[in-house]
């Protein structure tokens, strides 16, 4: 059973609020895979997820493109991973990034469509696109019962 739903946000702030609602539903072991071109709001959504996970609002969530992974302490630890700079799955594994998927935290992984096989089956897929300059179309999709449960709660 695949569950999907779409939503449009009209500003960065709205994207953050949506992320916050998603974040408040997440718990240890959940994985969110983000897909979307440069500038589509992946980092903004993650700022919201961090807030929803109880990360101190004074903590600045920044792009992990260079560092590959940023960690934030909340109700559970948030691992914000970005595979933008990596060339293949072997690099993902040898950099030790696979371990974060099973480290007992919540993982948000950017550029999740690059190697879909690295994502656990309970992942939520979030696809962001830019219909026009101020709008962001955000699609949520889930297959695993746990992931379906999360996006159904988010939609409610």
């Amino acid at each position, binding site marked *: 059973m695949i569950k999907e739903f779409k939503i449009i946000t009209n500003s960065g702030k709205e994207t953050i609020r949506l992320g916050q609602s998603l974040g408040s539903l997440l718990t240890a072991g959940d994985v969110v895979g983000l897909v979307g*071109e*440069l*500038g589509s709001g992946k*980092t*903004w959504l993650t700022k919201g997820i961090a807030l929803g996970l109880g990360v101190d609002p004074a903590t*600045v969530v*920044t*792009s992990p*493109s*260079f*560092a*590959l*992974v*940023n*960690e934030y302490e909340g109700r559970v630890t948030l691992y914000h991973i970005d595979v*933008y*700079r*990596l*060339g293949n799955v072997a*690099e993902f594994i*040898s*950099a*030790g990034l696979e371990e974060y998927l099973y480290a007992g935290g919540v993982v948000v992984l950017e550029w999740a469509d690059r190697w879909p096989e690295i994502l656990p089956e309970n992942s939520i897929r979030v696809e962001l696109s*830019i219909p026009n*300059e101020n709008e962001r179309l955000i699609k949520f999709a889930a297959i695993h019962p746990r992931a379906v449960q999360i996006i159904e709660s988010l939609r409610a």
Partner: protein
Amino acid sequence: MNILGIDTSCDDTSAAVVGNGRQVLSSIVNSQVSIHHPYGGVVPELASREHVGSISSVVDRALQQATLSIDDLDAIAVTIGPGLVGALLVGLYYAKGICFSKRIPLIGVNHLEGHILSVFLEKEVPTFPFVVLTVSGGHTSLFHVKDFGNYELLGQTLDDAAGEAFDKVAKILGLGYPGGPIIEELARSGSEDKVHFPRAYLEQGSLDFSFSGLKTSVALFVKEWRQSNKQHATIKVADIAASFQSAVFDVLVQKIVEASTRLGVSCAALVGGVACNRALRECVKQATLEKGIRLYCPRPQYCTDNAAMIAVAGFHRLLNGEKADLSIDVRSKFPVENMVGAKRSR
């Protein structure tokens, strides 16, 4: 006093020997940046196993170039964070091994503190207190440097680092990697007035930065520009590069000048990989000079990641009586502003 510096915090494996915190006897960086990558990123030398493969030869080359043996070392300074745990561990355990067998002090260093103190690798050095802008692929931060080991964070990027914006815009324009030098070169033949990209100064008085809006704005412009080539036939790729670069520089210049004048310092420093950009150095130098502030900027090989700056930071920590226990661990998160004095928890 000869200190061996080691850094394995990210892509490069580097080692250097620095005498008395000033004199660089050697500096070796094992870099893979010259290899281009299909996704516009670096071929990562980040993998721990790559560091494992190169650390021994990099340290040996640093000692050879300094014409010293391992017995001539007085201490080892090694980066313990921030960075990838697996990568950091390689440098730390290599350093621990030498320190244990040679019975010399081990000093754990913050990579960002290394960048901040990289200006001390040059002959002319700033006087305390000064303001430093650390601008690289991973960081864009302003600090008030009150003394060695005493740093106050004044502002930082809220999203993308400036160097990251260069890399991503180069990717959007299909220019390859690394984006910084490519855009700098191209911008020289372009006109910065052709396209107006937004400057994110944020709210009045803020010393924070934001470059994701600019990146998005370039992406949207390029999309439209490609679709309607006739309409924009007068605009060349070089013009877009120049217009983008000037949008980044305007903000960097304004914030470093604002911070320096607000704090009333007579010196400022520009460090980190993006500080290699000659146009940026020139802009910042000009703007600070107008306010009577002297700008200090290390030569390019000390702007990009290197271990000489780690040795400098280690030297000052050692002078301050700080030595690490052999049980010291790496720290993936390691805010540099929380390290005043010797009160480090780990």
